[in-house]
Structure formats: C-alpha cells, structure tokens
C-alpha cells in the first residue's frame, strides 16, 4: 500500500492505493490520526484501494469516531468497487459520509 497526502480546497486529502490489510492498517491508522490532529477536515480517497479487510475498515472507523468526538469532518471519497462492497455488506456505507469526489463534497456546502 502507498499513500499521498495533499491539502486542497481547505481539506486534507489522503489518497490510499493498494491493499489495506492487517499489515498496512496500523500505518493507515497513524496517518489518519496525525492528519486529524493537523486539520479537522479530512477526506480519505479510496478510489485506488484494491482490497480492504476488517482491520483496514477498523482504521477508518477509528478516524470516523475521533472526528465525531472532536466535532471535525471525516468522509470517504471515490470509494473503489472493492472497498464499496465491503462497506455495503457491513452497512457501513450508511455510517461514513461518502462522496464521489472532492467536487461533489464541495457541492454539499463549504467547510
């Protein structure tokens, strides 16, 4: 798995690529928590995620829970088919705010 962090339109964007599994999810977890500490508007781009297991989903859940507790924003964008089917089966697609893209998120109002 690789990642790229960029700041755009007032959001911190984390682009994840590859497999998010037991071996890589601790890194994802640390990355998201660091990002949330830096900026309270965090978007996770899952468009290039080829596989995500329950430990990877748990990392996203932790980011989401932390953002809720500190009143910041945490959303997923461009969720790949592989990630979407996992989230849908667990009904987590109803928990995480999900947008097709940053542009779609921006249409839903400013920060």
């Amino acid at each position: 798995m690789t990642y790229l962090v960029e700041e755009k339109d007032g959001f911190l964007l984390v682009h994840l690529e590859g497999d998010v599994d037991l071996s890589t999810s601790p890194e994802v977890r640390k990355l998201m928590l660091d990002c949330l500490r830096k900026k309270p508007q965090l978007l996770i781009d899952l468009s290039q995620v080829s596989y995500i297991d329950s430990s990877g989903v748990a990392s996203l859940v932790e980011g989401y829970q932390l953002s809720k507790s500190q009143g910041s924003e945490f959303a997923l964008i461009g969720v790949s088919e592989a990630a979407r089917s996992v989230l849908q089966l667990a009904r987590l697609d109803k928990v995480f705010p999900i947008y097709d893209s940053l542009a779609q998120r921006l249409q839903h109002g400013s920060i």
Partner: protein
Amino acid sequence: MGIAALDGLDITELPSPPQGALAVVHACGQDDMDAERLGDLVEQVPALSVELLRLANSAYFGFSREVTSISHAVGLIGRKGLKNIALCIAMKSSLRPDQMPAFPIAEFWESALRRGVCGRVLADKANLEKDTGFTTGLLQDFGLLVMFYLSPQIIPEWDRLSALNPDSRYELEQQLFGTTHDYVGHELAVAWGLPDELVQTIAYHHKEPEQLATESSIQLHKLALCVDWMAAAFTAENHHQAIKQSRKLLSEYYGMSTDAANELMNQVSDGMLETASAFGIDVAEQTSFESLVGESHLYLVQENLDFQQMNWHLEQSLEERDRIADELNRELDLAREVQRSLLPAASSELGKIFGLNLSAKAVSGDFYDYYRLANGKIAFCIADVSGKGMNAAILMAKASTLFHCIGKSIHDPSRLLSILNHEILETSIHGMFVTMVAGVFDPETRKLKISNAGHLPPVIMRGTNFDAEYPAEAPPLGVIGDIDFPLLEITLEQHKQLYLYTDGLFEAWLGEGQRLERDGMLKLFGRCAMVKPQQRLQHLVKDIRDRGGWFDDDLTVLLLES
C-alpha cells in the same frame, strides 16, 4: 588557495627545487659524464657538497676510509648513487620549514624517510639497486607535502591522514583536497624533469601495475606498494591491519615467509636512525617492529576474546528467545483453551444446530454460540471481530460472554444487539468492531427471529438450491451508538437450512488469485446438502481442500436445520 586550485594544478604555483642540485641529477643521466666533471658540478652547489661528504662518511655507506674530497666521494658513490642523493637533497630543499610554518614538516620527512628505508631494505628482493629503492620510497608521496603547501587550510587534517592506512588515506585525500598525492606528485615530477621511472612510479603506485610498460617499472610499482603498507605498519592507528597487509604483499610479490617479512620489517626500525642522521633529518624515537607485533598479537587476543564474548551473548540471547517463545506458546495455548471453552461443547448438541470454528492463528477473532433457553427455544449467534490476533481474541471473549449472559434473559435479538452495541462501544479501542448475527429459533413453530449487525448475509438453502439471503440493515457493534438493529421474522420451513458464516469461508482460496466468493459458496452449500447435518460443516472444509483450495483466515460456520 584551495581545492579548486589543486584541481587544475598550475605548475607556476609549485615550489621549485634548487637548480644546481637538479642540474647534477640531469648530468648523472648523461653517459658521457665522467666523475671529474660531475665533481666539478657538485662543487658549484655548496649545500649538495656538504651533504655528499657527510653521507660518504656516514654509516649509511660504511666506507672504510675517510672521504675528504668531492671527486673521491663521487667516485666511490657512483653516478647512480649521486643522482639519487642529489635528487633527495633537491626535493628536501624545495620546501623549507619557513615556507610552511603551520605544517609539521619534520613529521612529514620522517614518514618519507621511513618509506625510503623500507624501499632500501626491499630493493634486493625486487632486483633493484638500494639507492633506487630508497629514492623511490622517499619521494613517492612527495605530492602530499605539495598539496598541504598549496592548501594550508587543510593542515589541521594531517594528524588524521597520517594515522590512516594507505587505502583509507588515499580516499580521505580525495575528499579533503579533491585530488591525490600521486596526481600532484606526477605533475611535479614532470615539471621538474625527474627521471622517467620515478615519474611513472609516483604516478601509478596506487593504480594497477598492468598499466606499466617495462619490467623495472613493474618492479618499482610493486616496491612502492609494499613500501606504503610497510611504513603504515609503524605509523597507522590500525597497526594490525597494516602488518597483515604488508606480510600478504611481501608473500605475494616476493614469496616471503612471515619470518622473512618480520626480519625485513625489523631492518626498517633499525635503519631509521642511521639513515636519518646521514641525511640530516630529525626523527623521533623509533618503535621497534617487535613491539608493534606484540601489540598486534594483543589486538588479536582481544579480538578473539570479543568474538567469544559475542558468541556467548548470542547463545544467551537465543536461550532467552527460546524461553520467551516457550512462555508465549504456553500463554497462547491457555488463551486458545479459554477461547474453545467459550464455544458450545460438543456434548451440548441440540439436534438442530451445528457449528464449526477453525482459527487461522493460535487464537481467533470469530466465534459462534448457541444454547437452549428456558422456554425451549434455541438462542444462537455468529460473530467476527475486526482484525486478528490477541486484541481481536480478547474482544471476541468479551462479546461472546456478553451474548452468553445477556442472551439468556433478553430473547429479542434486536434488543440484545442494541445492548451489546452499547457495551462494546463503551470500551472498544482503535475502531475495533464486531459483526454479529443473533437469533432465536423456535423448533416447535419453526419461527426464526434474527437481527444482523453488519455481518455477512445469512443464507437460506432449500436442499441443494439457494432460497434467500438477508443482508445486514445495521452497522457492526461498536461503531456508532443509539441505532436500531432491525428484526427479521421468518419461518424456516421444513427441508430448509439456515447458514451463517464468516468471511473466512467467503474468501477461501480455490487457487492462486481465485477466491470462493458468494456464488462459489452457494454452490458449495448445494454440493454438500446431501451430507448429514452433523458432518456437513466438516465436509464443506474437506470439499474446498480436496479441490486444492485453502483457508488463510479464521473460519466459522453455523448451520440451523429446520
């Protein structure tokens, strides 16, 4: 003046030797020059005359009678000898201490003299004349002195450089000066018109000998290389390495035994004072080679001791590792045993419901449970904790205990999941969650109530055929609070079966890159439909394995027969 100036060496910046001494050097190279004419030339250079007489009367040559005239000295020493002496004096006079006040020039000449002495004692072995060996050794690193003259700001690095072995010193020169003594020495030797063989040796003594054309050039090259390491044996911080390398080269080039090499090195320390006095060079007290060998042996003993200690520490560490591994394995065995005890015992078979749990690791994050309620109904669940390993196993223990206790009094699966969600959310860390299907089945009426918290869809089969599946309508336990877990009420008609499973089955491998997935799983249920329910779950696993497939995740399946 710095490294840049050295980079494109300007010969007008170089020190110039006394012209008179240089004229003698050139005259010695002419075949028609007799001793008388040479003597006349020497007498025109007072410094050379004085040095020549002193040398001719020194122990260095060891003539039996006193030599009082220049022509006599020239006759005894010979043309080649005179050439070398003139050369040494010319070089030594070219850079005086007052031109480099901050540089320990005496130390440099001492190290150059040591190379000269090494070259002299080695000359015989190399089929070279003693004087040629001496001059080569003395002058081969003269370029370094010139480098310090041109870059005085690097003078503080002299101590560091002089304590290194030849190879490391060569690398450090390159870093500090941007050039090396062989390059600078060569430029200087060409500018001064020094004899060709000496120019070649200075230029190539850190290169491969194959680049040299004549046999005598190759011999000079080998001698210069040995001389560098032999001298380093006396000066380098790492004596041991220099002694070892000197012995290796002396054996390789001259077939010398270790004893013969030691004998040669002893001659170096013995010859230093005598030669220094002959050439008027001040040198410090000399360490004998024997005491250096003693130090080197001590070093070897210490190294051997260190090695033994390291071995001992390694053995200790390995024993410690094995002990910790044993301890961890015992702990894991205990954890596995506790986990097994959380699953229904084989003896608690209720005739209608069957479970299977295989762990990918020592402990599992999956579990199932079932028990008969006081009203005769059967309560059951299947669950999967996010992640794997010990943290997943501990959360599994908590979730299964909650289900086992609370499920006995709360018979509504929807309410039960709400309570479990609240409990797990309160204490869960790192976003860990539990997917769970909880249900209650009434064997009398075949009424089935189930509620699904983010778990994979329960599947109903009618024998070999797929009948229905019920995807989750609520997220897993431990993700968000204050949510409803919708209740599903169906009748499990006769000849129908309810299958609950974890992703270990869904994601079983059939071959490289090919997983079972949902469709393969439904076919698998169909294929095994005719097997007795008591053996069917084991048969599912056997079927996959018989087809060359395997499981790399925890696997749990629960089967409820109508």
